[in-house]
């Protein structure tokens, strides 16, 4: 499962991810990380059965942890199947079928939102994820 870890500016310089991993032994597979002056944000994969363990470790160190259980929403009525999304997706969620129909494999989605920005027809959305 995918989780998003938000790190507030006060603790952004502390190695809380490393501490939580060492403490719990849970392997976090980081797929995205963004840090700037105002906050840090990490998207990672973690096995469902150990989620609670790593969540409480991170929360105890001041992070905010949320499940990312809503992958990209594809509105087929708005979509014109242009395929603009294909070349920006880092995980190959999108592809074209032989008849040029758009195929969407949501299970690959890491919810980075790049395709949402790209889509000219507002046919892609990330809900409950900002």
């Amino acid at each position, binding site marked *: 499962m995918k989780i998003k870890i938000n790190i507030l500016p006060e603790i952004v310089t502390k190695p809380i991810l490393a501490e939580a991993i060492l403490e719990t032994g849970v392997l976090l597979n980081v797929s995205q990380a963004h840090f700037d002056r105002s906050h840090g944000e990490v998207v990672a994969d973690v096995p469902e059965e150990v989620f609670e363990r790593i969540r409480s470790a991170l929360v105890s160190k001041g992070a905010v942890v949320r499940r990312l259980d809503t992958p990209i929403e594809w509105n087929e009525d708005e979509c014109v199947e*242009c395929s603009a999304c294909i*070349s920006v997706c880092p995980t190959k969620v999108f592809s074209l079928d032989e008849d040029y*129909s758009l195929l969407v494999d949501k299970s690959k989605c890491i919810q980075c939102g790049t395709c949402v920005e790209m889509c*000219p027809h507002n046919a892609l959305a990330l809900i409950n994820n900002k």
Partner: protein
Amino acid sequence: MVKKTIHEINAKIKDGSVNVVTAEEMVDIVAELGPEGAARDVDVVTTGTFGAMCSSGVWFNFGHSDPPIKMQKVWMNDVEAYTGVAAVDAFLGATQLSESLGMEYGGAHVMEDLIRGKSVDLHATSHGTDCYPRKVLDTTLTLDDVNQAIMVNPRNAYQTYNAATNGTKQTIHTYMGSLLPRFGNVTYSGAGVLSPLSNDPDYRTIGTGSRIFLGGSQGYIVGQGTQHASAGKFGTLMVQGDMKKMSADYIRAANFTGYGTSLYVGMGIPIPVLDEHIAKAAAVTDADITTNILDYSVPSRDRPVLRKVTYAELKSGCIELNGKEVAASSLSSFKKARKIAGELKDWIAKGDFFVTMPVENLPVDTSARPMKETEGVSFVSEIMSTSVVTIDKDASVYKAAKIIMETAFNHLPVVSRDNSLVGIVTAWDISKAVSQDKFDLVEDMMTRKVITAKADERVDVVARRLDLQGVSALPVLNNEDNVIGIITSDDISKLFARRR
């Protein structure tokens, strides 16, 4: 030599014996029968395209109010339309943005809303005249309520169009979509094998007066489009059609992040096969049609061509660029293009659509000139300050403060021993260091990620960079990364003040 007339073909459409195929099907037919055999066999080839066509819009006639108004300004759902013509005529352009919603909603969205049967708020103002006394008007209209809604697109259906990529380190947002850093992706537009003008590149049958499929209904070609550059195979078409009969399956509003709105237009053009030359041209394949990949991060009209590429390569989804495999994706929909070519084929086969010969041919040898600019373009080298004072990275904060006080420069580029730029300090950075009681070396408190400019860049480009990055000065570097000057927002303000 096969010779057919348009009348013979239309007679076959009328009696139902016409042989009509799509431009995709024509490829195999010509491969099998040869151009002459194909010309004998096939009467009409249909093409199709569905992509962003910014140069699109609609002429409205709203009908007269009572008392009447001569509209001076008019807005539809807060998107301004041009009404510098007769009293209640106005042209709504696809890329005009809403005054309240900005890039989220534009002329294209008004068009799609109207086609979908939604009502639109109309607001108009006027100075009032003896014959048109009314000064303000507000009403709500649907497509049925207006007298005419004639789509007139000044430039549609590019013969081919450049593919786009981005050589900088940041994502850029363009009308070619999001372009990822370091040549991270390539985007392109156009239907390739189905592209109307690519299937009749000498404009033998496509010209003024040609009847076409436009937005799901019958439309017509007005003539050459604006910027028609036929000599370089960048032909364009001006087209018109009745928006009241159009369908949202084939006319769609679009938003390009950071650019604005555009209109996806569905168009199909039939090519009557009068002889084997026309048959041969209509058998063009994706592998035959080439375009250039341009670096859209270069802020210039003349963007460098990275390489030539065929539509076959682009459509494979992956192309080679600088020795790397790069994902390529289309902004136009080939599936829709196919659907349009198929629908037009059905219309013709059923006898609902007759083909035409142009009443005037499109010019074949035109090119698009760049703009003549009489005001002169200012370059960074003309207004930058060359008396820039730099500071060594090993100098103390105290020394930096002293230099700023003595020279009255607010920005000190920081250089390493070989005189190349490694950072920048400002008076503000020093105040901050002092307030935190940190009197260390310049190196420890400087900003390391310096936004810079080059002397041969245009001032307008650099002004936008200052604005986007939220900084007030850029060190100007030569090719060896040595600081040769500094350009500040003050320099730019003075330049614009002088111009006025």
